[in-house]
């Protein structure tokens, strides 16, 4: 009860003078608020525990390094640190998504078969066949450039060397090849998606 009479600011002051017990009072005084705040955002006890711990590690370091500017706002300051760490946690998680193991677990949520099934394989072959026929309909110069670029993976520099035209001409032929392909696809309502 006696501790409640001491303000946060005074406790921080005492802690900075070397009174470790002051930190203990501060943690016990605010732990529930801070922990609940973190839990309300992350909804996971273990992660909350980690963020709570990291928050106070940061608090302790900042205080000991003398970087804390006492303005009578100890709790809002700690909450802000927790808030930033929560954001860091979500950023990290969005880069490396983990599967949730707490509820119903489906192995298919983490394992996926990238191989096409029989139906999709047939559709893919059909699309490739249609596309080859469309390419064959193109004017010879455009067809050559497109085949060299797309199927033989040649650069426009290599294409220009091989066909004896400038790079700009090769680029222009590629552009017209694509425009013509799109035109024919639109005209004949050909669907080229799997």
């Amino acid at each position: 009860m006696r501790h409640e009479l001491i303000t946060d600011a005074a406790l921080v002051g005492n802690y900075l003078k070397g009174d470790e017990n002051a930190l203990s009072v501060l943690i016990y005084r605010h732990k529930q608020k801070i922990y609940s705040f973190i839990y309300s955002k992350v909804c996971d006890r273990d992660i909350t525990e980690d963020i709570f711990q990291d928050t106070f590690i940061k608090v302790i370091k900042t205080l000991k390094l003398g970087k804390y500017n006492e303005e009578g706002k100890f709790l809002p300051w700690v909450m802000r640190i927790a808030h930033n760490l929560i954001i860091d946690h979500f950023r990290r998680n969005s880069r490396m998504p983990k599967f949730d193991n707490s509820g119903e677990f489906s192995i298919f949520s983490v394992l996926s078969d990238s191989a096409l099934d029989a139906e999709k394989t047939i559709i893919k072959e059909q699309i490739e066949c249609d596309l080859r026929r469309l390419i064959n309909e193109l004017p010879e110069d455009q067809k050559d450039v497109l085949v060299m670029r797309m199927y033989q993976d040649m650069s426009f520099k290599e294409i220009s060397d091989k066909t004896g035209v400038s790079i700009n001409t090769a680029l222009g032929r590629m552009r017209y090849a694509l425009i013509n392909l799109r035109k024919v696809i639109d005209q004949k309502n050909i669907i080229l998606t799997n």
Partner: protein
Amino acid sequence: MAKLYPEKSPQKQNDLNPKEETVNFLLNYSKALKVIECKKLKFETLLN
């Protein structure tokens, strides 16, 4: 009318407290952490 089933609500607020071991770790960490000032530089040392 279709029933609405909200997601599981977080546990009761009064149940939400850090583990005792977490708090103890922090208190021990604080005791172990020393900051040494050398000229304008500050070094952190963690004593076991």
